[in-house]
């Protein structure tokens, strides 16, 4: 065990007019994760620290935050791999509700806009809807999204324009647009083609760097743009 230094951007809407930094020191193993550090702070130093987490294993996408200035999942970053004091901030571009908890309502309403579910083509078959390995491969990358918000909140176009549908929703649209079993492509592409759709993307690549699942987000966006330009999937 050794002491690890943190500084966290705290904000309590009932007390603070704007966010401020607070420093903390907690005992941790070098192999502990940043999330463990935050839990230790909440558990033994200041119980009012507010954050989201659920699975603690990089699956649920709850604990995306800025760690030393980069969007990361706190549960996937080891304490020994980051410089101290470890600076923790809420994701940028969303309204902060409290401390590290941000309002993701707009984020999820954009997610819902792209109809993120299989739209059936014809009546349901008796068993499963078959697909060749190649057809499955076509959209494999974008199936990995856990909707943590790291890509969208790393995007300068989104910071400048909160109405931009954002990389996460485009990734979700891509996942179905390029699925051979899906029949809702036109509906989704229509949304993608709007002013606040894919054309707001300026190919900055921050989303690729931010994605904790290693999704090539910019490539997915480019494929949607290409589908629109060529007029075919």
């Amino acid at each position, binding site marked *: 065990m050794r002491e690890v230094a943190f500084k966290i951007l705290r904000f309590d809407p009932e007390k603070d007019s704007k966010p401020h930094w607070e420093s903390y020191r907690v005992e941790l193993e070098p192999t502990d994760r940043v999330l463990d550090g935050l839990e230790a702070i909440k558990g033994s130093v200041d119980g009012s620290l507010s954050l989201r987490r659920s699975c603690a294993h990089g699956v649920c996408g709850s604990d995306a935050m800025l760690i030393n200035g980069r969007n990361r999942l706190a549960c996937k970053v080891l304490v020994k791999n980051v410089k101290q004091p470890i600076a923790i901030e809420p994701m940028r571009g969303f309204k902060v509700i409290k401390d590290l908890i941000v309002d993701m309502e707009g984020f999820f309403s954009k997610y819902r806009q792209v109809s993120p579910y299989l739209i059936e083509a014809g009546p349901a078959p008796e068993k499963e809807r078959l*697909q060749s390995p190649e057809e499955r491969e076509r959209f494999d990358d974008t199936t990995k999204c856990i909707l943590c918000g790291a890509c969208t909140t790393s995007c300068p176009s989104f910071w400048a324009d909160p109405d931009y549908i954002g990389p996460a929703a485009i990734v979700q649209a891509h996942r179905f647009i390029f699925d051979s079993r899906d*029949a809702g492509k036109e509906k989704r592409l229509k949304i993608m083609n709007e002013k606040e759709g894919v054309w707001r993307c300026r190919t900055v690549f921050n989303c690729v760097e931010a994605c904790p699942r290693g999704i090539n987000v910019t490539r997915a966006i480019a494929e949607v743009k290409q589908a629109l330009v060529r007029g*075919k999937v």
Partner: protein
Amino acid sequence: MEAKLRRGGVSMDRQEPLTTSYGSRVKPSGGIELTAWLFMRISGIVLLVLALGHLFIMHVFNSVHVIDYDFVARRYVKIFWRGYDLTMLWLAMIHGLNGMRTLVDDYLHPPARGIVVKGMYVVGGLFLILGTWVIMAFRSP
């Protein structure tokens, strides 16, 4: 459909695809934003040649000390150079104006956004008219 799916395995009959729109044409393509995006790429590629060519001819192989009325007059005898400059003028102005529209969209909000963008279009339009006029009306002695 049932028979086809029963065939099992993963290789489906591509001759009679399921009734999805996969591989089909997608209707809602087209539109202003798509056109603007595509124009930025195409004009960018053309400008790469034209603007770099311009830079080298005017400022590397020649220089502002060499370029005078005679230089321009000699150059504009050839319709080629007038076409070159005219193409570059229009592409750069529209490319630049559309790029500025994107930037203004980022930083300004209505009503300032609309005023600034329209103002840019007016100024840009005047430059386009003036530039086109000079290129077309110039008489080489």
